[in-house]
């Protein structure tokens, strides 16, 4: 018996916490649409199905090779960062050929709607984006985790040829863009360990949603 998931715990709670879920009669369930929320919904109990807490056995075991190929996401701690390295200098050269046509020379803006990437001028400091709409968000002033810059470039850039960059090239572009934004020194070479150590200037300005509905404006 495998461990109960929260879902199954919810199902057993709905069944009155008895050790064994009652089997509903057809008349109980046949006329009932699925509930508003899935907490107590059990697809196995749909009329004709295998019964509550039973599986349909559909789907297949995921091949490790597929997981390895698709599971490329890199989170805020950078634990998944790959081997390789790249320098800001190499990144600057690569940027000029692979990125500047959309994001502008030096990352200071290109063809709309491609965002500006670089900018740490004093007028844009202080994270006063809400009070001053004229301020432009850039990697330097509005990107909380350096590791996810690597993630984004690798998964989504260049727009027309995603996946075309090597990991070394992604490290180089990451290094260039962080250096151009004065987050790291110009001569920096980044690898996994170095990138994990980079703290973005305004990381702590991002706060969780505090809206919960009800009267009032938030």
């Amino acid at each position, binding site marked *: 018996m*495998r*461990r109960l*998931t*929260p*879902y*199954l715990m919810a199902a057993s709670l709905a069944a009155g916490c008895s050790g064994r879920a009652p089997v509903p009669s057809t008349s109980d369930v046949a006329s009932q649409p*699925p509930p*508003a929320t*899935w907490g107590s*919904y*059990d*697809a196995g109990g749909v009329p004709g199905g295998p019964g509550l807490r039973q*599986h*349909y056995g*559909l*789907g*297949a*075991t*995921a091949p490790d090779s*597929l*997981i390895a190929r*698709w*599971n490329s*996401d890199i*989170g*805020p701690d950078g634990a998944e960062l790959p081997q390789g390295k790249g320098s800001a200098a190499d990144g600057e050269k690569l940027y000029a050929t692979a990125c500047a046509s959309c994001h502008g020379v030096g990352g200071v803006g290109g063809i709309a*709607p*491609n965002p500006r990437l670089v900018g740490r001028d004093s007028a844009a400091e*202080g*994270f*006063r*984006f*809400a*009070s*001053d*709409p004229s301020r432009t*968000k850039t*990697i330097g002033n*509005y990107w*909380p*985790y350096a590791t996810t*810059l690597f*993630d*984004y470039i690798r*998964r*989504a850039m260049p*727009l*027309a040829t*995603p996946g075309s960059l090597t990991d070394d090239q992604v490290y180089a572009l990451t290094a260039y863009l962080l250096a151009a934004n004065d987050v790291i020194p110009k001569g920096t070479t980044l690898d996994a360990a170095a990138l994990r150590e980079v703290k973005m200037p305004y990381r702590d*300005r*991002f*706060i*969780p*949603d*505090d*809206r919960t*509905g*009800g*009267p009032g*404006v938030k």
Partner: protein
Amino acid sequence: MNDGSNDERVSHELDAERDARARSESSGDHTVSRRVLLGGVAGVAAGALAASLPRVATGQSAAAAAPTAATSPPTMPGDPSSLLGTPTSAQGVRATEVAPSRVPVGQVAGSSRAPLGQLTGTITPSDLHFERHHAGVPSIDAASHQLLIHGLVERPMTFSVDDIKRLPQVTRTHFVECSGNGRAPFKQPKPDTTAQAAAGMSSNTEWTGVPLATLFREVGVKPEAKWFLAEGGDACHMTRSVPIEKAWEDAMVVWAQNGEPLRPAQGYPLRLLLPGFEGNINVKWLRRLELGTAPWMTRWETSVYTDPLLGDKARQFSFVLDVKSVITSPSHPDVIATRGWRPITGLAWSGRGRVTRVEVSTDGGSTWHDAQLTGPALPKAHVRFQYMWNWQGEAATILSRATDETGQVQPTRSELIAVRGPGTDYHFTAIVGWDVKPDGSTFYHGET
């Protein structure tokens, strides 16, 4: 592809009274045609609604297909009942004078909006549902498409589209709205803004698929899983982090919309549907779900889709769309041609549940009157409202204000700015409406 092959068709003398007043004018990033609302006849509501369904004048449709034999202007007999009609067809076309179109078109990293001012009822036709793409629409072979679920699960598994279809299905009606909906008119209200431009990145359709909980049960989610990552199979490999509670609440993996498989622009063959959550997180072309303990902090939940706040902060994971409404008729570029009764009608919705009340003002917000909800208010779905108005040629400002089941009421634009600052960048839920001039013309009223 849509079935609107008549988008370019020119209406010829179909309704001389309407055509005589119709003219085109440019509006922002797209072009619209002015339409004329008629009224004062028997069957007022039906007549006004029918008359409010506009046409697009020559060459003004955003879809620039050349006219074909099938779309060439028809020859209309004086008495249609005197001639044998056309035969059945495989997919059908819209009535000649009805040519609602999304605008703008041609965006691979951008959006097109639903023509809310040209629609009625609550269901958005699938081919008019707004689009927002970040790297275009991918071409996916549904027969080989896989949904991978892995991470903190007992059994990492893949599901084919056929597997998904073989599980028990559920069908729900929900809106999807981009949290950037109405950004430009909010930031800089302009009189020539249409309902499409003001709110057309909200659409409402019937979705069919399986509860995400059903799939999570099949793979056995581990108790330590608190978030999951959803990834799309488009060229940006869209990734968003979702709190796992949403899976047990009402999340679905859908494969059909309005009775047919998803259109490519809406995520064919599989889409994550998170009712009430901002559009971007309803990941299209869904190919992977990874269970984990904490959010992944992807670009789309940090650098964008976060809300700058006063106090030099930014609100993150602001998933839920607050209560909102928009009057769709009359709305710019409508011209009210006839004095007398007509409905002021529009749409209201809330990502927090049901809309419980919509009020309409015809005096710019000095006084408010309860509107009627014309059908059942489903949770996290558009509901249509109407308020009957006996217009006698006076200048007026008509506004709508919705309340949801949590008691949240739409704020004015100035109230929203006072709380969030002028640089607020998503979730534009302010009260808006239309200025009606004595000549019957209507213009956007966004400064509330």
